[in-house]
């Protein structure tokens, strides 16, 4: 970046001296903060408990093995619920995310100064609240159960899907839309011929990706009473039924692996 003259030859350095010092100083500050925080955590930890962590862990593992396979009969329904929460939640989210995305994208929004900020606010507020917290609130509002979980997943996913989709809309090739416009097409026709074909792969990819995330998220929603397999997990932990807990963890692992496989296959075939 910097070239200066020295004895008839040009000297090149990546940074000026001042920049070099400020980089060094930033590292110093960063490391100091890290050391300080480390100290703080260390002081507040009861190291005696940590010392026997290995014993505790092996003890817990011992109590978890073997998984209580017969408990599986009680799990099929919650697993089915979990998948339904994720799938319906994703579907609901997409229904709302598509119009929000078109309002948020700079090149398709009806108004940059009025509609776009609202759409962006919807996206940010949906994204900033974790689905577990959405579920916690919804359980108090609409009562415990699968519905609360579905709505929680839906609300959390609107922002995610809309954000990725509006970024895809902003990245389309404008000349294709221009060409459609030049034929005398109406706004709606420009949308379905010029824009939609360009964002369809992104849309499919985003939906499947979010569905995959939602399967994982919906496994814990039961912890706050919003339905799904988390309900059984919570109950088993409270009653110290560790052999059931290990079975549930295995089932969750299996479900997530299957969903990842399905979503990878779908994405691969679409894109």
């Amino acid at each position, binding site marked *: 970046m910097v070239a200066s003259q020295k004895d008839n030859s040009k000297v090149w350095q990546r940074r000026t001296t001042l920049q070099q010092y400020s980089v060094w100083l930033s590292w110093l500050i960063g490391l100091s903060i890290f050391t300080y925080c480390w100290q703080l955590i260390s002081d507040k930890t009861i190291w005696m408990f940590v010392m026997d962590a290995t014993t505790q862990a092996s003890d817990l593992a011992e109590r978890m093995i073997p998984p209580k396979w017969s408990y599986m009969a009680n799990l099929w329904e919650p697993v089915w619920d979990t998948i339904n929460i994720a799938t319906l939640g994703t579907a609901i989210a997409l229904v709302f995310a598509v119009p929000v995305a078109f309002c948020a994208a700079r090149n398709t929004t009806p108004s940059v100064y009025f509609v776009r900020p609202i759409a962006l606010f919807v996206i940010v507020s949906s994204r900033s609240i974790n689905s577990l917290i959405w579920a916690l609130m919804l359980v108090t509002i609409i009562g415990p159960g699968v519905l609360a979980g579905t709505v929680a997943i839906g609300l959390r996913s609107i922002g995610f899907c809309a954000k990725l989709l509006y970024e895809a809309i902003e990245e389309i*090739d404008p*000349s*294709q839309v*221009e*060409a*459609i*416009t*030049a*034929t*005398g*097409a*109406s706004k*709606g*026709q420009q949308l*379905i*011929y*010029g824009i939609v*074909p*360009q964002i*369809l*792969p992104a849309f499919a990819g985003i939906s499947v990706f979010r569905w995959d995330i939602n399967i994982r998220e919906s496994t814990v929603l039961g912890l706050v009473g919003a339905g799904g397999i988390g309900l059984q997990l919570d109950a088993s932990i409270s009653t110290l039924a560790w052999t059931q807990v290990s079975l549930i963890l295995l089932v969750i692992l299996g479900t997530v692996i299957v969903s990842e496989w399905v979503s990878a296959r779908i994405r691969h075939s679409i894109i």
Partner: protein
Amino acid sequence: MLRLDSLVKKYKTGDMALKSVNLEIPNGQVLALIGPSGAGKSTLIRCVNRLVEPTSGNVWLGDVELTRLGSSSLRKARRKMGMIFQEYALVERLSVMENVLSGRLGYTGFWRSFFRKFPQPDIDEAFHLLERVGLDHMANKRADELSGGQRQRVGICRALIQNPEILLIDEPTASLDPKTSRQIMRLICELCEERQLAAIINIHDVLLAQMFSKRIIGLQLGEVVYDGPPDGLTPEVLTRIYGEEDWEATVERVDEDNLDAPADILG
């Protein structure tokens, strides 16, 4: 007939892309618009169908003043102006047939176009045009599977199916190799001849312009600095359009090329 009356385009950045351009193009005339990059060639043709809004001045197509139209009558008027683009601007993920039929969008309702239920005469015409440019066997291919020359042929079909009175052609050969460029230019000129279409062809290849067009407009910094026949492009004129360079070779080569080019192409 297309008429531009003291057409001015000033971009928000303050750039004067067009400084009071006056131009008259009779029916059926193919006109080549040459000039260096940034001379305002693209702006000029986009001001005609108002993909770019002119700052002042008027554009007349026949007895319609395009510059005064509201959005719905502008859409009707755009149907009469076919446009062909530099990078083809086909909708990449749609089939060749859908791309050609998209030229009929101005004549088709929303739901019919949504469900791809185009009227049978449109479909017949689409097949006929694809056959004319030698792509009838490609109708169901996706546009992004085609080569550059094939894509531009589809672009030509899309413009022609509009049943236009004039073609606005923006650098049709800029992304093509020399041989394909000549084939595409020849095709465009033949089709204009067949259908008695007027055309404005933006082109930065002086040789191609001279080969295929009987009238050349030289644009420089938003002003028309030359309007005349191809053989009037002397080194002095080219210097006026493009700036100081050695133009002798260009002018000589043109004469040879003209001998090679079959006379019937020029009509």
